[in-house]
């Protein structure tokens, strides 16, 4: 089984490269932390159902975790374009390396970075007075990993298909804005009119946010939780499969 050893070797190498420029880990954190600091306080009076053991951050923080995935993992496709141009992808293709390993190693590295970012974000939220079920918070972090793999793989596939920063930037912006608003990240969609609630059901992030909210509430048995997990795992599998097939054919 060379897949595991190849993936591990590349994962270590990619992680090392990332850690040499730790600034990027913080850059992706910037926007979500702004929301946490500058937007969450506005919600205090708007969000109903807060009570003992619950506050606006209980509702808001799960959404910000997903937002972090969007601003971090969904934008990794930029790096593959640079790698493609530098011949990095091609050099691996003439080695006996398992064909799936370069993608998987990258996506796992990105998922790990996302996990670290989420932990930092939750620490900030706790410092701001987050009240949440601790076990639920930990389970949400488990959910974040396959989400990171799915988003990163999707982004790499786009990068390899478009091969140009000029093409991927607008596309990602076009994708993220409606996804962000439709997923109920900023405000729960229970506040939304019916058509908007219907539209939200198209966005996979809607289910992820629902799942993490239920977990933060400590409602492990809520159907939103298993729906979220199943969806994210399925999404990760599909995205990895798709991206891997594009990686196999990728040329500069």
């Amino acid at each position, binding site marked *: 089984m060379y897949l595991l050893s190849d993936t591990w*070797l590349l994962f270590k190498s990619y992680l090392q490269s990332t850690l*040499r*420029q730790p600034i990027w880990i913080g850059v992706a954190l910037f926007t979500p932390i702004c929301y946490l600091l500058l937007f969450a306080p506005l919600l205090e009076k708007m969000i109903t159902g807060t009570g003992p053991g619950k506050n606006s951050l209980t509702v808001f923080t799960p959404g910000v975790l997903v937002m972090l995935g969007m601003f971090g993992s969904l934008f990794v496709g930029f790096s593959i374009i640079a790698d493609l141009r530098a*011949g990095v992808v091609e*050099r*691996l293709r*003439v*080695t006996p390396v398992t064909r799936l390993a370069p993608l998987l190693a990258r996506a796992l590295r990105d998922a790990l970075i996302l996990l670290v970012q989420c932990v930092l974000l939750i620490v900030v939220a706790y410092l701001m007075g987050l009240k949440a079920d601790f076990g639920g918070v930990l389970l949400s972090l488990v959910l974040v990993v396959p989400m990171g793999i799915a988003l990163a793989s999707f982004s790499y596939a786009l990068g390899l298909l478009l091969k140009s920063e000029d093409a991927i930037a607008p596309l990602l912006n076009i994708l993220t804005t409606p996804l962000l608003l439709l997923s109920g990240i900023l405000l729960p969609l229970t506040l939304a009119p019916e058509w908007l609630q219907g539209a939200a059901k198209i966005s996979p992030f809607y289910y992820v946010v629902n799942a993490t909210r239920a977990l933060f509430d400590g409602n492990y048995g809520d159907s939103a939780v298993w729906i979220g997990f199943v969806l994210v795992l399925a999404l990760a599998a599909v995205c990895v499969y798709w991206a891997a097939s594009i990686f196999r054919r990728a040329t*500069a």
Partner: protein
Amino acid sequence: MSIIETVGLSKTFKTRQGLVEAVKGVDMRVEKGEIFGFLGPNGAGKTTTMRMLATLMQPSGGRAMVAGYDLAREAGKVREQIGYVSQAGGVEVAATGRENLILQARLYRLSASRAKERAQELIIALQLESFADRAAKTYSGGQKRRLDIALGMTHQPPLLFLDEPTTGLDPQSRAHLWEEVRKLRNEGTTVFLTTHYLDEADALCDRLCIIDGGKIVAEGTPDELKRQVAGDVVTIGLDTHNGALKQGQDLLATQDFVREVQLDHDHLRLYVERGEQALPLILRVLDGAGLNLQTIALARPSLDDVFLRQTGRSLREDEA
């Protein structure tokens, strides 16, 4: 013995403008232990051919045997036998040269300790000692190129592909790299390289192909190819006004000692048997016709003359 043999190798790309035939049936042989050059202008199909031979691209037609294996059916086996250094190189720039080499060796399934040893061997062989432990993004062009080649040689392949190995290097680094390539050849590696530099093909390659528009137009050693042109080349500059060039061309073409005259922008190019004997004759003819000579130069034929004869264009023009 041939290490590469192709028959009718071709590649057609689908683009929005329709089908583009990048490589139109290449037949060639590369012998074991030689430096074989693929010379041609940009867009001639050099890189495409090399990428097909290096298993990076599926041929649209034809067959090829590379290092004893069938390219179409045994790509994995071919990959074990070849090293490939693309134009871009493919170094992980955030990592050091040594880290790049160790990772590459590990991906070729060497054990951790053996990979370290191999990296050190390559560092010594390609003289990377002074910078191997710095991040690759700090390297000069020549340093990076040597690391690229070291990466391609990690698994000691009998056949190494180098795509435009000296493009963008300063003259000193080029000379250094040529030395490295010769050293590899002397140690038994067959080197297949592409270049659009005439002097590189001439000085470095044991044998070469000239490729233009996806077709091979000439093949042989640099000397053989130059001998095809035969004789010497005299370049004459005339007053370009009032049709003097054309007049000169017609006049000289009728002379017995002139094999061929070509009009090349603002000057005439004459192929003659013995340059030193032809010069005074040329002067006399032009003077007799009242044509004003501006410059005259005599040269032994170069590969550019070979290219010019075969394609009617100068390789130098394409560079500009």
